[in-house]
C-alpha cells in the first residue's frame, strides 16, 4: 500500500481495492508520501510522509525544501484519529435505529477512532452489566473503533437517586450523564458532582430547563414565529447553564475534584456564561456540535445556506424570506434536534467559542433515528441528527470559508475532546505507537446520500448535499477502520 498525496489530484489512499486488509485487520503496511500532516499534540502541521508497519506508526517524516514543494493543506491530509465525546449508538434497546456495529462503521467513515456513548439506552447504562453488554457488542462488531461509555448519573436516568457510580467507575466508564435530559434537580446534580469528583470523573450535562421548553418545537425566534412553531427560548439553555455553574461552584468547596462538562451548547449567552466561568477559574468545559455551527433555524423554513452565509455584515441574522433563500421544502424533520437549531448569531457564537477555546471540542451528538420516528409531523418527530459521518465535512466547509483554521478544526476533533476526558491517551502522530489516524482528501468531495451513510440513521439534513473532504482511510489502534471503496479505482 503506497500512495502519494499532495494537492495535484484525488490520489486515493490505501492501495488497490480488495488487496488491502479488511475492516478490523491489522494494517501490515501503509505508506503515504507527500501529504499534509497535522499533529495537534506538537502543534506542528506541514508536508510530510508516514509509514505504518504491522499496525505501528513507524515513521513520521516532515518534508522541507524541494521535497515539500507542491504539498499544501488543500489536498490529502493526515490527522490523528478523531474522538467523539457524544454519540448515541442506541444499543441496547433501540437496535432498529443503530447498533454498536453500525455506529462504529459510521464513526470510522467519519474519521473517528474513538467514540464515547451516551447512556440513554434501554435499559439505561446505570450499572456495570449494561456496560458489559455494550463492550461485548463492540468486540463482536469486528470494528477497531474504540468504544467508551458514559454511565447514567441517576438510576434509570430517573433523576431520583444516583446510579451505581462507583461500580461503573471500576468497570471503566469515563464520566456520567443523564443526556437526553438534564440532571433533574440541583440537589442531585450537587451530589453527583461530589461523588463523581471523588472518583475523578466529570459530569456531562445536557443543559435544558424543562419547564421553559416543555411542548416546544423550534428555537424561539423570527423563524418559529413565522412558521407557527412553539418556541424553545434561549433562556431554556441559559437558565440551566446558570444553575449548573452555581451548583458546580458550590460543590467545589467540598470536593475540589468536581468537574462539569456542558455538552451541545447552542446559544450565544450560554457560551458567554461558560467563557466567564472559565476565566474565573471554574473547572468547566463545553462542546459544540457540527449542526449548531453550520445549520440554523431558517433551514426549517427551507433555507439551506450555511450558518455563516446567513449572518449579515452587522452581526445579525439575515432574513431568508427577504433574501429568497428558501430552496427546499419546509418542516423537514431531520432538522428537529434538541437543543434546537438556533439563529445565525448563535451559530457564530458557537464558532467563536471554538476558536477562542471556550469550547474544548466538537462533539457530534450523533443521534440516529428510524424512519418511523422521523417520517411524521414535525412536532411529533424524535429529536436528533445522524451526524458522525458528516462532522468532518461540515468543519471543512468552515475551513474552506476561511472561518476556522484547519489545525483548530483538527484539534477540536482530537486533543480537545481528550482534555475533557480524564486519563485520555494523547492524540498525536506519534512514532512508535499504534497507528491511529485518518487520511482525507480536501481536494475531493462526496455526496451525502442514504446509501453513502453507513449509519442506520439516515436522518441528516445534508442528504443530497456535496461535502468537502472525502475520508480515504481510517486506522484505529493499528487496524483498518474504514477504507474508501473507490480507492485504487484510477
Amino acid at each position, binding site marked *: 500500500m503506497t500512495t502519494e498525496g499532495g494537492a495535484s489530484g484525488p490520489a486515493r489512499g490505501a492501495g488497490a481495492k480488495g488487496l488491502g486488509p479488511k475492516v478490523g485487520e491489522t494494517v501490515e503496511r501503509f505508506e503515504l508520501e507527500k501529504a499534509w500532516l497535522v499533529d495537534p499534540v506538537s502543534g506542528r502541521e506541514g508536508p510530510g510522509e508516514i509509514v505504518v508497519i504491522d499496525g505501528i506508526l513507524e515513521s513520521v517524516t516532515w518534508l522541507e525544501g524541494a521535497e515539500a514543494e507542491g504539498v499544501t493543506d488543500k489536498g490529502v491530509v493526515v490527522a490523528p484519529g478523531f474522538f467523539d465525546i457524544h454519540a448515541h449508538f442506541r444499543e441496547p434497546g433501540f437496535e432498529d435505529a443503530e447498533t454498536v456495529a453500525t455506529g462504529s462503521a459510521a464513526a470510522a467513515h467519519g474519521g473517528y477512532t474513538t467514540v464515547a456513548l451516551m447512556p440513554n439506552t434501554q435499559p439505561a447504562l446505570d450499572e456495570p452489566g449494561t456496560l458489559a453488554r455494550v463492550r461485548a457488542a463492540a468486540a463482536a462488531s469486528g470494528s477497531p473503533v474504540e468504544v467508551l461509555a458514559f454511565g447514567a448519573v441517576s438510576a434509570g436516568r430517573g433523576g431520583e437517586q444516583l446510579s451505581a457510580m462507583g461500580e461503573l467507575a471500576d468497570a471503566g466508564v469515563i464520566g456520567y450523564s443523564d443526556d437526553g435530559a438534564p440532571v433533574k434537580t440541583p440537589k442531585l446534580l450537587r451530589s453527583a458532582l461530589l461523588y463523581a469528583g471523588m472518583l475523578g470523573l466529570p459530569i456531562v450535562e445536557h443543559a435544558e430547563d424543562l419547564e421553559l421548553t416543555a411542548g416546544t418545537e423550534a428555537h424561539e425566534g423570527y423563524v418559529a*414565529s413565522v412558521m407557527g412553531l412553539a418556541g424553545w427560548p434561549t433562556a431554556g439553555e441559559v437558565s440551566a447553564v446558570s444553575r449548573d455553574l452555581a451548583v458546580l461552584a458550590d460543590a467545589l468547596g467540598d470536593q475540589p475534584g468536581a468537574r462539569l462538562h456542558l455538552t451541545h451548547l447552542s446559544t450565544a449567552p450560554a457560551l458567554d456564561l461558560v467563557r466567564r466561568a472559565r476565566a474565573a477559574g471554574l473547572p468547566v468545559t463545553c462542546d459544540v456540535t457540527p449542526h449548531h455551527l453550520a445549520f440554523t433555524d431558517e433551514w426549517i423554513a427551507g433555507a439551506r445556506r450555511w450558518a455563516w452565509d446567513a449572518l449579515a455584515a452587522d452581526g445579525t441574522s439575515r432574513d431568508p424570506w*427577504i433574501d429568497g433563500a428558501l430552496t427546499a421544502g419546509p418542516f423537514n424533520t431531520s432538522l428537529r434536534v434538541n437543543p434546537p437549531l438556533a439563529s445565525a448569531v448563535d451559530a457564530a457564537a458557537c464558532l467563536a467559542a471554538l476558536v477562542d477555546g471556550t469550547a474544548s471540542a466538537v462533539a457530534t451528538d450523533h443521534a440516529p433515528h428510524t424512519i418511523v420516528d422521523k417520517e411524521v409531523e414535525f412536532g411529533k418527530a424524535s429529536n436528533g441528527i445522524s451526524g458522525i459521518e458528516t462532522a468532518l465535512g461540515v468543519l471543512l466547509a468552515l475551513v474552506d470559508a476561511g472561518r476556522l483554521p484547519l489545525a483548530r478544526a483538527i484539534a477540536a476533533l482530537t486533543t480537545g475532546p481528550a482534555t475533557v476526558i480524564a486519563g485520555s491517551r494523547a492524540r498525536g502522530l506519534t512514532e512508535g505507537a499504534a497507528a491511529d489516524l485518518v487520511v482525507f482528501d480536501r481536494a475531493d468531495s462526496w455526496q451525502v446520500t442514504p446509501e453513502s451513510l453507513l449509519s442506520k440513521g439516515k436522518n441528516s439534513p445534508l442528504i443530497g448535499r456535496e461535502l468537502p473532504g472525502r475520508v480515504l482511510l481510517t486506522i484505529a489502534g493499528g487496524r483498518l477502520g474504514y477504507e474508501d471503496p473507490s480507492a485504487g479505482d484510477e
Partner: protein
Amino acid sequence: MTTVAPAASGAGTDAVAWHHRHLIDVDVLTWPEIELIMRTTEQMKGILARPIRKVPALNGRRVTTLFYEASTRTRVSFESAARNLSADVVSVAPATSSVTKGESLVDTIRTLEALGAEILVMRHSVSGAPYLAAEIFSGHVLNGGDGWHAHPTQALLDLYTMRENVPGGDLRGKKVAIVGDILHSRVARSNIWSLTAAGADLWLCGPATLLRGFDRWASAWSGGAVPGHGKFNVTSDIDAALRDADVVMGLRIQRERMQGGLLPSLREYAAMYQLNAERISLARPEAIVMHPGPMNEGVEIAPDIAISGRSVILDQVSNGVAVRMALLYLLAGSHEAAQPGHEGAHIETAR
C-alpha cells in the same frame, strides 16, 4: 374530465395560469394568483346564486376531508364546496378511524390514496403536517388549517369579504386590525401574508403574552423588503389598533390559555380587549367587524357587536364556500393540464 364549469370558463383565458398542485399556505401565492382566486370566487358566487347550485366541474373527482381537529364550519364548508362542484366526498374523522389505533399520518394518507382519494383536504393540530402529506400524496392537498401555522382558505375568504365591503374593493392603505390571541393563530399568520400582499395597513393587537415573537417578525419586514409584501404593526394598545380602522377582526380566546399562565382570566381579557360598542366606535363609521369563528361571545366580542349591522361574520361563512369552490376548481378542475411542480419538496420563492 372534459367540461369546464360554465360560470368559471373565464378562468381559462386569464393571463395568470394556475400552476400550484397543492395549497398549503398563501405565502407561495403571487398577487396576480390571489387576484385569480378572487375572480374565480366571484364566479363561484354566481353559481351559488342560481336556483340549482351545482356545476359538473369536478364531476366524479374524489375529495376526501381528513380533519384531525374538531371543526364544524371549515369541514362542512369544504364538503359543500366539493358537492357544489359535483365531486364525490368522503369524510374521515380520525377519532373513529384507525388513527386511534396508532396509525401514522403517512400510513393514513397512503391508505386514503389507495381507496381512491384524489383531493385531500386536511386539518391537523401540528404545524407543517400538510407538507408531509403533500410529499407522499400523489393528488392535491388543500390545507384546512395546520397548528399555529396556516389557514389559507380562511385568509382568502377574509380577503374576499373585506374587498366586498371596502369601497372600490381595494385594500391598499385600508387599516385592518386583528385583535386577540395572535401567538396561537394560524388565521393571523396566513392573514399577514395575504393582507400585506394586498397593501393593507395591518395591525395585530393583543396582550403581550399572546403577541410574543410578532414584534420580531414586524421589525424584520419593517422595510417591506419581502418581495410582494409590506410592513405591518404590532401593538398591545387596543385603542391605537382600532382608531380609524376600516376592518376589525376578533380572534377566539381559548380557555386553555389561562392554564398556560398566559392570561389572568377571561374576565380581565374581556375588560381590556373585548370588541364592544365603545371600542368599535374608535373605528371608522363604516368599518366592518369580522371573526373567523367559533366565537366566544362575551369574551373577545360582545354579542351585540357580533350581530350588529357592521358584522359580516355570516358573509365570511357563505363566502367561505365560494372561495373553497374556487380553490378546488383551480387545483383540480378540468383545466389542470399544465402539471405543476411538487410543492411538498419545493417552495416557490417568487412572490
